[in-house]
């Protein structure tokens, strides 16, 4: 028999975006890898290498497939289309890109290629799809930022023309500044396929690092002959703790730098690094890591706090594995509680939550003489620089950190992850080095949301006034501190919720276990405490026969009331406005649910839940300034050095809008320079809902200062209207028009003729031994409603709608506000219904479930603008707030529908059904 089909020749030929290509790679290679590394198609993103996330979706002969589960050889002779090619060549894809921009359907942008390619396939068959068709077509692409609703809107509006409309555009005002719902100014690269993320920037031929990790929760280990392994394997370098030139310790909180880059003799969690191999990409890919010379001796381990006291201390100085504690006392709760007419209490728990950004950690580093340049996806370039300096034994000035686009962060990309390995390898070899985590090692080794075990007791008077609260929360902080101290501190301050609580005690503890470190995740422990407090509020309201919304409204903090830390806001406490905004919706939806339940057969019951939330913007009682630099070049270009890393939330757009408004020029006149520790000052970390508030204030001050200089130069009044035409500034006021010739001015420095640098640090005060003080200058507040249906025989929960009221003080960009709320709500849905990381068991995106496009119902966002004395133009932070009330609102709605009280997240069908049966048995 003739084998006409003998072994395929090396390399594969096909059409890529309409052009013939021949990729010289193994035909058995993943198509995704070949397209990215050999075909220059960096718009194809890799999120999981398992068909679980859809980021790598391409069209093969018109059909969307995951290129990570397609062999290069299988597209021999086929036509492969990617996002960039589609947008460049296909008018419908181009229209879709415009629609994505109009609706801000891209946030971080890492899922956007997969979403758009999938949508193009649908639109080619059906140019006006219904929502259900969009869901089916896009169901295979995961997004962690947007909550999907804007993506659905964009696909269904692909033929629309409407531009985003400034909400309060008034004659004579700048329509791109504060208050304008402009498209993201950094959006086009994301929707056209030219955005470059952490894994997209290394030069061809860079060496590759792969980290060797512990397969045990806790183990002693010995490394063998690393040099021999290096030689036999053809590697350039094998690194371990012995190669770390500086201190082999890093961390994010002063005094808690406890995590080694490479473990020394003992690993404390499964996935901890012990060594790393460095070599050519093909050499590293072909390595037999089972032959790596390391011997393991498993040791007893603890995975949950109540086992932690039984194992040896993970860190010598932390007795009983207690990392730290937090405490707030206000009034006299022990004395007040017995006077309460109604006392409710309960125990509640949540599990580890994985951030689940679709972009795994990645970095590329290059040594330049005695300096090191590190490009990485990060939320905190300056903190990364300090951490790297400590590990490498270099001065901070010797390191330049250049953030790439960040494909989602949510707190976990504050900490160092992949960067040190690329940095050290580049330093030692003198060659460019890259690293990208696999999905498995990303989930296994990056930080998580703290699991919580909470007991809480609340007493109220007969008229429904909260009298006393006692709260005790234990948080599993994992093997290393990371942001654990922040969680321990924040929770006692926030666990009352945004309610008047005259007598209050809250204790928290962060406990070390042999798990991945728990760190920062959107809300820093506050979503967990809300899952105790808000369900208990429902119990009190029910016991007293008071409407659940009305009960919250009665107890809502108002201006003039002390918080549990004794802080009195004379302005800016907007929670009651949130409840008021919900009230008409609440009355309607509650009535609809009652009518549905009266008419239906009982197999499905409908319920409604509500919850409030608050969150202090910025660091707790600590200085956390932001600095903004701006200048005008001799050519008349206005340049804004904007260092607030945009991880999808929109700081590039928001900060520019604020700066433009303060300066008095349209956004289009501003050229943005992003975070880069060599040229852009420190705008702090993107966390704690601080960028709009704190960096926004710095941008406002910087814009105002630059404007003041221009006005002085022109000798014009404060209200002058500015224009820049070429190298001249034209200032116009009642007295007439002045022309300033920029080139004729004495330049401030080599870069700018006029340069201003301004900082802002929010006013706070330290907390005393009872946690009393002024931890934050600003609290943002929110109240959300969830409408659900519960299947009484299966325990499944279907979300019908979320209505979210948010007091943002002032919406700098209302479309970005909606996007943040949608994304936070989606993460709240995951927390409530499906997410739980189990070390060693859910280290992929099919066992660790995040919501898909079919799991996020319509979300109505009610934006309230009550202003704030501290915020720029009255704006407050928002990022974390939107997640806090979602899960408790859903849990309360489940109880309302079915009676089921689910106290231990996530509320899987199994747990909901069990709780339904416990409720039936109790009645």
């Amino acid at each position: 028999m003739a084998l006409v089909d003998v072994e395929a020749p090396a390399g594969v030929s096909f059409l890529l975006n309409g052009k013939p290509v021949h990729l010289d790679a193994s035909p058995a290679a993943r198509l995704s890898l070949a397209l990215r590394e050999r075909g220059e198609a960096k718009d194809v993103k890799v999120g999981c290498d398992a068909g679980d996330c859809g980021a790598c979706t391409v069209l093969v002969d018109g059909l969307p497939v995951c290129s990570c589960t397609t062999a290069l050889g299988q597209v021999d002779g086929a036509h492969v289309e990617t996002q960039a090619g589609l947008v460049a060549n296909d008018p419908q894809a181009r229209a879709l890109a415009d629609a994505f921009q109009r609706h801000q359907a891209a946030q971080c942008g890492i899922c956007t290629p997969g979403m758009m390619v999938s949508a193009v396939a649908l639109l080619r068959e059906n140019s006006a799809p219904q929502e259900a068709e969009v869901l089916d077509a896009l169901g295979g692409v995961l997004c962690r930022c947007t909550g999907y609703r804007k993506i659905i809107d964009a696909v269904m509006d692909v033929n629309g023309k409407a531009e985003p409309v400034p909400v309060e555009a008034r004659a004579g005002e700048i329509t791109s500044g504060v208050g304008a719902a402009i498209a993201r100014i950094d959006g086009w690269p994301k929707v056209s396929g030219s955005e470059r993320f952490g894994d997209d920037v290394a030069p061809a031929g860079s060496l590759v690092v792969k980290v060797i990790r512990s397969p045990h929760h806790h183990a002693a280990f010995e490394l063998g002959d690393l040099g021999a392994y290096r030689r036999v394997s053809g590697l350039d370098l094998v690194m371990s703790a012995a190669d770390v030139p500086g201190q082999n310790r890093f961390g994010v909180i002063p005094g808690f730098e406890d995590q080694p880059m490479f473990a020394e003799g003992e690993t404390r969690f499964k996935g901890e690094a012990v060594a790393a191999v460095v070599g050519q990409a093909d050499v590293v890919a072909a390595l037999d890591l089972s032959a790596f010379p390391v011997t393991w001796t498993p040791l007893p381990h603890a995975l949950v706090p109540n086992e932690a006291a039984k194992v040896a201390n993970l860190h010598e100085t932390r007795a009983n594995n207690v990392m730290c504690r937090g405490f707030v006392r206000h009034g006299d709760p022990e004395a007040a509680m017995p006077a309460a007419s109604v006392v409710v209490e309960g125990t509640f728990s949540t599990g580890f939550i994985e951030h689940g950004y679709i972009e795994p950690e990645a970095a590329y580093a290059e040594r330049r003489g005695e300096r090191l340049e590190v490009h990485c996806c990060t939320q905190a370039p300056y903190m990364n620089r300090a951490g790297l300096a400590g590990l490498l034994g270099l001065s901070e000035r010797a390191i330049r950190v250049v953030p790439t686009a960040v494909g989602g962060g949510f707190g976990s990309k504050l900490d160092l992850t992949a960067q040190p390995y690329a940095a050290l390898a580049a330093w030692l070899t003198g060659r460019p080095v890259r690293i990208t985590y696999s999905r498995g090692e990303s989930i296994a080794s990056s930080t998580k949301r703290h699991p919580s075990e909470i007991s809480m007791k609340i007493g109220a008077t007969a008229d429904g006034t909260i009298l006393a609260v006692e709260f005790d929360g234990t948080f599993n902080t994992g093997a290393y501190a990371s942001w654990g101290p922040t969680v321990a501190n924040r929770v006692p301050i926030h666990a009352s919720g945004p309610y008047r609580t005259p007598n209050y005690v809250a204790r928290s503890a962060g406990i070390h276990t042999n798990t991945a470190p728990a760190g920062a995740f959107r809300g820093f422990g506050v979503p967990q405490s809300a899952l105790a407090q808000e369900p208990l509020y429902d119990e009190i309201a029910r016991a007293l026969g008071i409407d659940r919304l009305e009960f919250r409204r009665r107890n809502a903090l108002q201006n003039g009331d002390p918080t549990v830390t004794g802080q009195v806001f004379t302005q800016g406490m907007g929670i009651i406005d949130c409840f008021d905004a919900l009230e008409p919706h609440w009355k309607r939806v509650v009535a609809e649910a009652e009518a549905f339940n009266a008419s239906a057969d009982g197999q499905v019951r409908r319920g409604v839940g509500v919850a409030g939330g608050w969150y202090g913007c910025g660091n707790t009682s600590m200085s956390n300034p932001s600095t903004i630099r701006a200048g005008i070049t001799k050519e008349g270009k206005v340049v804004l050095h904007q260092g607030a890393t945009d991880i999808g939330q929109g700081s590039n757009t928001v900060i520019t809008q604020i700066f433009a408004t303060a300066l008095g020029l349209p956004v289009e006149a501003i050229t943005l320079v992003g975070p880069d520790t060599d040229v852009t000052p420190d705008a702090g970390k993107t966390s704690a809902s601080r960028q709009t508030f704190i960096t926004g204030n710095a941008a406002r001050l910087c814009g105002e200062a630059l404007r003041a200089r221009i006005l002085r130069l022109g000798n014009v009044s404060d209200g002058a209207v500015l224009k820049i035409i070429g190298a001249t500034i034209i200032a116009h006021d009642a007295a007439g028009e002045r022309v300033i010739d920029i080139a004729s001015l004495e330049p401030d420095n080599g870069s700018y003729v006029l340069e201003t640098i301004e900082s802002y640090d929010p006013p706070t005060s330290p907390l005393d031994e009872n946690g009393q003080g002024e931890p934050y200058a600003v609290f943002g507040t929110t109240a959300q409603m969830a409408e659900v249906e519960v299947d009484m025989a299966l325990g499944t929960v279907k979300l019908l709608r979320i209505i979210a009221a948010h007091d943002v003080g002032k919406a700098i960009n209302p479309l970005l506000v909606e996007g943040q709320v949608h994304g936070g709500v989606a993460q709240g849905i995951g927390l409530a219904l499906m997410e739980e990381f189990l070390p060693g068991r859910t280290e992929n995106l099919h066992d660790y479930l995040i919501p898909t496009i079919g799991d996020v119902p319509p979300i109505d966002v009610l934006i309230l603008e009550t202003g704030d004395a501290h915020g720029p133009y009255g704006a407050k932070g928002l990022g974390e707030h939107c997640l806090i009330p979602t899960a408790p609102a859903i849990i309360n709605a489940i109880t309302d529908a079915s009676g089921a009280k689910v106290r231990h997240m996530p509320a899987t069908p199994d747990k909901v059904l069990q709780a339904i049966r416990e409720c039936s048995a109790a009645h």
Partner: protein
Amino acid sequence: MQFHRPETLESALVLMADRPVRILAGGTDFFPALGGKTLCEPVIDLSRVDGLSGIMKQDDLWRFGATTTWAHIAKADLPAMFDGLRQAAREVGSIQIQNAGTVAGNLCNASPAADGVPPLLSLDAQVEISGGAGVRVLPLSKFITGVRKTELRPGELVTAILVPDRPKTCSAFLKLGARRYLVISIAMVAVALELDAAGTISGLGIAVGACSAVATRLPGAEARLIGVTPDPVTLKARLGEEDLEGLAPIDDVRARASYRRNAARELICRAIVKAARGGA
């Protein structure tokens, strides 16, 4: 690295003879199973083999070619007996997975939660296996023997799934998971149903997935419900715990065994009602 794209079954079988090879079709299980490892064995891609894909009817037998994709099945013009199979096809992962994943790949991967297995089991499907020694046919119920285990021998390929034509049969499939798309089942049920003139159940196949190491038929439950009117109340009253004894669910991250057993019972009743109502 050897990578072969044979165009005939004969050449595929010759390439496989007497040496370890890796069979690639849709790739949707092939690559995830590979993880970060590099392949050593030769890869044989079946996606170009002539005649291995497509659905046709020969006499009283429906033939689903091994590399027929789930998207193809979902869109195919098939009689009501395959409604359940087509519903399952639309629940396989996502559009991306359905466009690439193949029906035989789903069986050969032998996951306890394979979406394609229960509907085919409920229809008494058979598996056509070709090898150097010729062709053999096994009932699907005998083909998958355990988690990731099948009766396939070295040098053999599944070439088709064969389903006896049953013009009077209607069918349905229900999948229960913790999210809408890209979800591994907590439990799933397929039923194939025949009703007599009076509207009572005269023939019934029930198959349950994700509740045992291998998806399984429930002959006890099937026998119990013959002669019953397919309405929810009657079905629930009739179907007892003991009728589900063929199931051996486990506790895992998705649900406890007790929940799975309960859910399977509920889903069986609902799937029967759905099938009897013509899929509504």
